[in-house]
């Protein structure tokens, strides 16, 4: 029997794909939307001395990237346990 056949595992994979899609959506929004496409418009707002679009391009997207990976690590740890596919 091939191991990818069970319904359980297919559900695990689907949930994983949803998590990936949501996190990559945020990844795209902070870097490409806020840091590039809307950077000029966002520059009208400021946090401290930073124009907002400039800040996203320089710092904000990088900080978000770090958070995204750790959120993924945390979510997948829980998902692995929920479906019993974690490694011992």
């Amino acid at each position, binding site marked *: 029997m091939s191991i*990818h056949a069970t319904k359980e*595992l297919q559900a695990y994979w689907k949930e994983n794909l949803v998590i990936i899609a949501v996190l990559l959506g945020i*990844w795209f929004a902070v*870097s490409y939307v806020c840091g590039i496409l809307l950077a000029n418009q966002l520059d009208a707002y400021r946090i*401290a001395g930073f124009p907002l679009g400039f800040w996203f391009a320089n710092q904000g997207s*990088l900080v978000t990237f770090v958070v995204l990976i750790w959120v993924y690590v945390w979510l997948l740890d829980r998902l692995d346990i929920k479906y019993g596919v974690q490694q011992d």
Partner: protein
Amino acid sequence: MSILVWTWIITGASFALYIYIAYWARAKTTGDFYVAEKQVPPLLNGMATGADWMSAASFISMAGLISFLGRDGSYYLMGWTGGYVLLALLFAPYLRKYGRYTIPQFIGDRYYSQTARLIALLCAIFVSFTYVAGQMRGVGVVFSRFMDVPIDYGVIIGMALVFFYATLGGMKGITYTQVAQYVVLITAYLIPAIFISMHFTGNPIPQLGYGSPITAGGAALLNDPSTQGKYLLDVLDGLSKDLGFAAYTSGQRPMIDVFFITFSLMIGTAGLPHILIRFFTVPKIRDARSSAGWALIFIALLYTTAPAVAVFARTNFIKTVNNVEYVNAPSWFKNWEKTGLVGWKDKNGDGIMQLRPGKWDDPKSANEVKIDQDIMVLANPEIAKLPNWTVGLVGAGGLAAALSTAAGLLLVISAAVSHDLMKNILRPSMSEKEELWWARGGAGVAVVIAGLFGIYPPGFVAQVVAFAFGLAAASFFPAILMGIFNKRMNKEGALAGMIVGIVFTAAYIWWFKYGNPAANNPAGWWMGISPEGIGTVGAALNFLTAYVISKFTSPPSAEIQDLVGSLRYPGKEVPEATSH
């Protein structure tokens, strides 16, 4: 003690440490040599990945590059970090689950094709050599600038060191020296940045400091009391505009090009073999995910500091050099003038240094000041009035950055030769001992070739970095992604996709760099996309071709589909690849 003595002491001590670690972690098996027996803890793997990733260029040149590019420079910042999100979510856990040694091996097994294996191993070798040439040159340059050693001797010293620990230790030796090298390079980068941030804004965190107002002490350093209390970025924007440059925080490049370059750098990062193989070295699947997280923390520490350094250094440079009489030039300016990194040509004969847009040696430009981008990092300790030993530390940091990246790349080349070419294509029957000799020999030969590139830099080195990222983006990224996420993707589709992606990207870059350099400008580019950003299009063509071709050809065998299925579930076994 003098700067030179400090530099020799600190560099010597760091080299002794690397040699000791390499001896302690020497490889005994091919598993040791290729993947450190998969026993590297995720936090240490994150540090090693950071050092592997951050090259001589990241350490010495990037802040300076950004200081000239302003907001546009953030395609480097986002492009060279955003790829790690892709690595963590799309590649790292699945490649670790696959559990073998190299990227060409994954591509060869997944697409049950020796041709695919061969294309992948040639790409891996080409990309890695392109990259490593710059690193060996970087070692020589640091030696010559900090220690008055001719560049060629510097390259040879670096070669000898890398030769020792790469051939002896393989991945295991490289990993643990990279951990030490990360500590050296990040300390060397952060200390001057923290002090400069405190001097100018009173904030010890550079990432916040460059968005803060200038203090009284900062205004005194800039010789301009009127800047006190104003936001540093506002002062820099104002100065830039006064001198005829664009405002620092504004973007100049066409948005479409910035978009495509950023994307190309991100997927190129995710497709670079020397980064991908780092995820083979951890014990478990979840460790592969978390080591990507650690890696990005350690990388972001430097990559968020770099734009701060760029702003501090640029503001300081303009304020303390522009419109200042040469006889009153700051001491760091005169110190570094000897190296040719800064210079002054009194075109109008008034004895005053004028900094304007344009080239300093162009008689038509009013600019009189030469600025090499590297000065923005190298002169930092002196600008921050730090003690001599910190200058030595920056030298050791630059060497650590260059050596660690070089070692990771050399390992990819060595494994491509010994494991992919010899073991998996030419001589499948050879013993492990024999393979280990091929691996050590491959690493040794690769070091020598890389060193020769460092001593006799081919004119195209600076040009071909676009090649490395473009090819990784157009070949590896799509092939690996489809290999994991599309069970139906077959040999025919993947091969056609890789060939189309590689040929298109290489031809586009070649045309604008060599074929017709006169057209290398936004008006000449296709859709306004520069050669640096074309990898994005190459990858898109690869996906499209592969998808269409795979629809019209037979799906992979059940065993291959099982292999792909098994990659997706951490606790289940991966079947051996049988069909070739």
